[in-house]
């Protein structure tokens, strides 16, 4: 029994580790693909060189991030079988086709047109090249749609029955894809991807503005990014609120854990701002709370009753401490993004957007925050779904493969070592690419300007700041 439990914990750790590394890459490439399409389109429409230069700059970074996203994604598609085979057997007939559509509609589209986008400009011409860039962007969004549909079905399952072998069988595909939480989760995730990318692009632009290198390009990307943050951050908070209300309706235990409401509150529940939840003793130590505010947010009335974890059997409670903190981290970072957006809007109003050095410094500091918020959000929703994989229908403990603990321990160790080594190097290369903006020439508006032809993807290799190392 103990050995079985160990294998389960190891399998969960491995999934959490590999998916956490994976999710930050699509979160970045979904936004960046759309940004590249916008840059490419602006270049074709305005013929301004700055858009071409920015396109080539971010294209190189996209290629590195996308490559890492692809290989870490292949791992995910096999891990359902290697580590979660009983889940795959039971839920495969429902969730498998949904993910199958992701591969058919999205992965091939991205992969097929990525080569043309990266290497094909001279071979296909600008119009088709823009089309290819658009297809890559559409592919990333389709991919997000299908995988969020699959995840949402696991969170709020419907439209299925159970056969004699104990498998879930599809009854209504429309209901399976459009589950109650799907639209909220999809909007929340796509906005998160756009915010994450905007913060990275903004940080890069701000850093170069502070350094005074390539002011035209850095100002252009900074203004575009901060405009995005100013618009999307408030929308994201609104979307998050709606998503939370949806969760209250369909997965109340998750909300109870997020709020650390161990007890029911018949006369209005407090919002615990901070505190140390103690799940064993069912209390929150050192709590700082605002009476009634939780009921106001969730039920739109100070005195509305709100049930607590005392209404849930202990063995079906999600881990409160993790969910409580990850939720607060996400919300806190979201508020910081809102402030950055407001600050940018005010600075823009006063004509100081690219010259307010404290704003620029803040934007640099906020660069990685989108990734942290995405991770915190996913930890909240995935850990909050526990102890189930398919909410209310299949326990995590009944989902795991009958694989021996030493095998899982070996693979987990290997994944940890390889991921830190490979993706650590990748992050280092991306940061180095961001650091180097080639010096600017005079702004010219060209009808058929020279196409920069440095290498597979132009950019610096170590020690050769003059450009790519091959392919001229």
């Amino acid at each position, binding site marked *: 029994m103990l050995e079985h439990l160990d294998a389960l914990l190891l399998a969960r750790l491995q999934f959490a580790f590999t998916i956490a590394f994976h999710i930050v890459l699509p979160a970045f490439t979904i936004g960046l693909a759309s940004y590249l399409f916008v840059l490419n389109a602006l270049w074709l429409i305005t013929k301004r060189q700055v858009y071409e230069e920015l396109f080539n700059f971010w294209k190189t970074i996209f290629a590195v991030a996308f490559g890492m996203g*692809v290989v870490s994604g292949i791992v995910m598609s096999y891990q359902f079988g290697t580590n979660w085979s009983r889940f795959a057997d039971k839920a495969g007939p429902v969730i498998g086709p949904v993910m199958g559509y992701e591969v058919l509609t999205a992965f091939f589209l991205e992969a*097929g047109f990525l080569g043309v986008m990266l*290497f094909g400009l001279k071979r296909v011409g600008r119009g088709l090249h823009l089309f290819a860039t658009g297809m890559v962007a559409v592919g990333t969004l389709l991919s997000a749609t299908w995988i969020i549909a699959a995840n949402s079905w696991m969170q709020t399952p419907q439209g299925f029955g159970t056969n004699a072998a104990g498998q879930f069988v599809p009854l209504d595909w429309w209901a399976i894809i459009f589950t109650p939480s799907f639209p909220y989760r999809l909007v929340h995730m796509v906005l998160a991807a756009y915010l994450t990318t905007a913060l990275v692009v903004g940080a890069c632009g701000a850093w170069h503005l502070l350094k005074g290198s390539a002011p035209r390009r850095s100002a252009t990307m900074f203004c575009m990014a901060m405009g995005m943050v100013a618009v999307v951050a408030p929308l994201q908070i609104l979307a998050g609120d709606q998503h939370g209300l949806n969760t209250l309706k369909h997965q109340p235990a998750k909300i109870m854990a997020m709020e650390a409401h161990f007890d029911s509150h018949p006369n209005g529940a407090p919002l615990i701002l901070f505190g140390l939840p103690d799940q064993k003793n069912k209390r929150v130590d050192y709590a700082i709370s605002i009476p009634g505010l939780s009921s106001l947010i969730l039920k739109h009335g100070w005195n509305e009753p709100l049930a607590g974890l005392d209404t849930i059997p202990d063995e079906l409670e999600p881990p409160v401490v993790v969910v409580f903190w990850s939720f607060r981290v996400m919300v806190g970072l979201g508020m910081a993004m809102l402030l950055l957006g407001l600050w940018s809007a005010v600075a823009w109003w006063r004509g100081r957007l690219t010259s307010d050095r404290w704003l620029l410094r803040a934007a640099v500091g906020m660069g990685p925050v989108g990734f942290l918020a995405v991770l915190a959000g996913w930890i909240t929703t995935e850990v909050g779904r526990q102890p189930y994989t398919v909410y209310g229908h299949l326990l995590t403990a009944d989902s795991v493969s009958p694989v021996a603990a030493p095998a899982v321990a070996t693979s987990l160790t290997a994944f940890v070592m390889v991921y830190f080594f490979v993706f650590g190097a990748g992050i280092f290369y991306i940061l180095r690419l961001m650091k180097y903006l080639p010096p600017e020439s005079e702004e010219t508006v060209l009808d058929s300007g020279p196409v920069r032809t440095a290498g597979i993807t132009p950019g610096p290799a170590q020690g050769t700041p003059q450009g790519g190392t091959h392919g*001229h």
Partner: protein
Amino acid sequence: MGIDLAFVWAFLIAFVVLAYVVMDGFDLGIGILFPLFRAKGDRDTVMNTVAPVWDGNETWLVLGGGGLMAVFPLAYSVVLPALYMPLTAMLLGLIFRGVAFEFRWRTKRWLSVWDWGFSIGSMVAAFCQGIALGALIEGIRVADRAYAGGWWDWLTPFSVATGISLVIGYALLGATWLVLKTTGDLAAKARHIARPATYLTLLGMGVFSLWTPLIGPHYLGRWLSFPAVIFSVLVPLLVLALVAVIISGLNRQKDAEPFLAALGLFVLGFAGIGISFYPYIVPPSLTIADAAASQASLAFLLVGALVLIPIILAYTAYAYWVFRGKVRPGEGYH
């Protein structure tokens, strides 16, 4: 009607796996041959022959895995735990070779790290795919809808032999691909490599074909029964004919013939494996019908597959067409 859909899907999954082997085989093959090309310029050119298409090639592997989970979830949930170690090693190998496509242009100091990562990653991935095939042919123990064996069961002399054979076979595909896509000394070198690779692949196929019937009487029975017996007689002749085409193509300095004939070898070998397996999907435990998901699952994804796979093939062909022709040293794609 029920049986039919499962068989349509078995055929489609087999097609997807074949598409993967055909497209990623040469792609892994150039990784396997990478250490033989020592000059940096040669390595750049070799890499550039697949850089625009490798990602699409590997997507067939994702479709194979994802598709299996969707339409044969029981097979997926039995086979993957059984092959836990080789599949994990394959995934790690694919990580190293995949990132190398971008990383090796981003550094000078670590260039050799990613070149080795590309090469060893490709070898490991190919070897593990061969191991997986061998272990699958030898059979997987199933009890109560789950894998019932240990975590080293996959390691046998036969699976190691199939692993080595597949590495050699992919190397042949890689070498003939380079004959097709490169010029001058590089192409000459590829031609030089392709010759022994052809003979070794022939040897591998021979060993594989003679060994498989010894594993289980059901395989022997299949091959001696009508109509498979026609195939048993014809295939060795066709294989020899294709080998002759490769060698004469190499001798006459033809570009495309050796590569196409090498692909032909893989198609024949694959068809043979398919005949051995039928009607099982996980021999000798699960038949295609046993493992199939519900009709609703099969039908829902089949609609999409029948519409989308031709479209995917069309734009994949377009991508190959855009990057057609020889890749000359130092030329890149611009």
